[in-house]
């Protein structure tokens, strides 16, 4: 029983990070119809920004959140405005290929700068944890979860309440109508892509607290972002949060699974991704537009 509780807590803690990982990806996909394959590379850049700030200037990772958001937002804005916008109205696969190329480019530049050595961000609270009953909770992961919840909350409020947020939602509904109403679509798209990159940077900062850093660290998170945002529903902030938590919990429980079929022994830890993906397929069969998704005409 105590294992069950521990798994649940681990799942929720991991799910918070996954929610932030998927949030930017989901916004870019849902609003601009761009599958950003460079999202994993952006996460990696965010983690390295935090690493450099921590080791060189001794800024705490949580304090570096706004810096990595700002830097990555700027990078994302420029990439959308001056690269992707060239083919903005091309079919989705064109931008898919473009961001694939960008991802290769960014990861390999990172390889030249930082080499493939694994690095880590070790703060004074890195190893610290507390126990509630039989459940152990690492402080760093708890802070991460709180930060993740705060970020998703702020994003949701901003999208609903602010003028820019309204322009973004209008553009997502109908580009032509938004243009007629005076929305500068190229600028809005650049902001959305910047937001996606900024949120990836933030996710990278949070990830650097619990995972080792190397230039290809973003790849597994890219795939998880895919799954989480579909699980929750594309382009929706709440969807990313619920999808992230659901994925984290499923994955944590899958680790505990042990199967014996005949003489064949299968341990859950090797299959956790497979199990999570099977769950995804079942969700898609039952709710083809994700848990939070709404049917369209």
């Amino acid at each position, binding site marked *: 029983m105590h294992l069950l509780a521990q798994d649940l807590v681990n799942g929720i803690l991991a799910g918070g990070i996954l929610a932030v990982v998927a949030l930017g990806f989901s916004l870019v996909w849902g609003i601009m119809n761009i599958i950003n394959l460079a999202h994993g590379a952006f996460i990696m850049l965010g983690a390295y920004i935090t690493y450099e700030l921590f080791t060189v200037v001794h800024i705490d990772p949580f304090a570096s959140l706004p810096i990595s958001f700002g830097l990555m937002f700027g990078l994302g804005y420029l990439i959308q405005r001056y690269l992707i916008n060239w083919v903005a109205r091309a*079919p989705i696969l064109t931008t898919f290929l473009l961001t694939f190329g960008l991802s290769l480019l960014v990861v390999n530049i990172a390889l030249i700068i930082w080499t493939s050595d694994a690095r880590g961000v070790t703060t004074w609270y890195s190893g610290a944890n507390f126990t509630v009953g039989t459940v152990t909770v690492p402080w760093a992961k708890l802070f991460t979860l709180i930060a993740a919840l705060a970020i998703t909350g702020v994003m949701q409020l901003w999208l609903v309440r602010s003028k820019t947020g309204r322009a973004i939602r209008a553009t997502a509904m109908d580009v032509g109508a938004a243009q007629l109403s005076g929305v500068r679509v190229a600028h809005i798209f650049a902001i959305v892509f910047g937001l996606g990159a900024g949120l990836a940077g933030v996710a990278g900062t949070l990830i650097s607290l619990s995972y080792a850093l190397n230039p290809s660290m973003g790849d597994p998170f890219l795939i998880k972002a895919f799954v989480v945002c579909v699980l929750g529903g594309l382009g929706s902030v709440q969807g990313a949060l619920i999808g992230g938590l659901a994925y984290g919990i499923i994955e944590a429980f899958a680790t505990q699974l042990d199967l014996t079929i005949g003489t064949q022994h299968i341990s859950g830890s090797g299959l956790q991704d497979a199990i999570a993906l099977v769950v995804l397929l079942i969700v898609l069969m039952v709710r083809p537009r994700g848990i939070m998704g709404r049917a369209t005409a």
Partner: protein
Amino acid sequence: MTVAATAAALRRAGLGGITGSPLAFVVVLVAMALLLAVPFAHNGYLNNVFRNILMYAAMAYGWNLIGGYTGYVSFGNVTFFGIGAYSAALLSAHGIDNLAADVVVGALASAAFAVVIGIPVLRLKGHYFGIATLGIGLAVSDIVANLDALGGTSGLAVHQVDDAHFSVYYYAMWLVALGAILGTYLIARSKLGYAFVAIRENEDAAAVLGIWATRYKVTAWAIGAMMAGAAGAIFAPANGFIDPSITFATDANVFPIAMTILGGIGTVAGPFIGAVILAGANELLQRYFVKAHTLFFGAMIVVIVLVLPRGLVWLFGLRGGLRTWAKSLTAFKA
């Protein structure tokens, strides 16, 4: 005859339409004929390079049928390649070392898997289909890595012919690629091809016209699966060893998609042209820029997409020069 006149003559002969530029198709056939000569160089390295190009071409054609013609973008076609490769490895483990048997079993096993998975999954539309196929690909790879019967993560050795007859793998791959090219051409010119395109353009309208969408979608996926499965079935003995990280590699998943888009999606010539350019460039870059080859590879893709967003085949039909080219760019004005 000038190039333009040749193109016009080909079009009068009934070539073109949804097969894409007829001139490009002829270029592909000529290139394929030239590729027959590669083993005469007696150079093992060259054999490998060009066999890889043909392998990627076959996989790209497999993806083009579902992703290009039918408009259902699959991120899991590498699964079929893997199933083909593992079928060949299992046959070899049971003492059957016959390339023809490998290809037939690999292609049929892949097609069977495509049908079984396709019937539920092809009901999903757009992005959701893409994610489901991505999930299937990763799940199958994970499951294979955990099955001792298939060698787990340490993989399986596959029996090879002796060096003197090694070019048999090259010619087998050539035949599979040729089959994929001609198969795509014939499908694109048949009722089947028009049904695929009708589904891509508007599935509801196609249904109104009496096209049973699910059946055609599953057919497109299964035929594409056969192309990838056959390529995998030859890859396994040619490579001599397979494991999940080779047969379900991300590269093997993304490359065929990238090649098809780069060459020209939904055309008969596109996947081949894309495969030659991407696989060829990758090989050259790896040779001359040991450290930074992936960086240049990425930069090359970015530049080509920005300059030719509709794929290289589009160049064959280009008239009006720069002005038409500028129209192909679709930027939003600030």
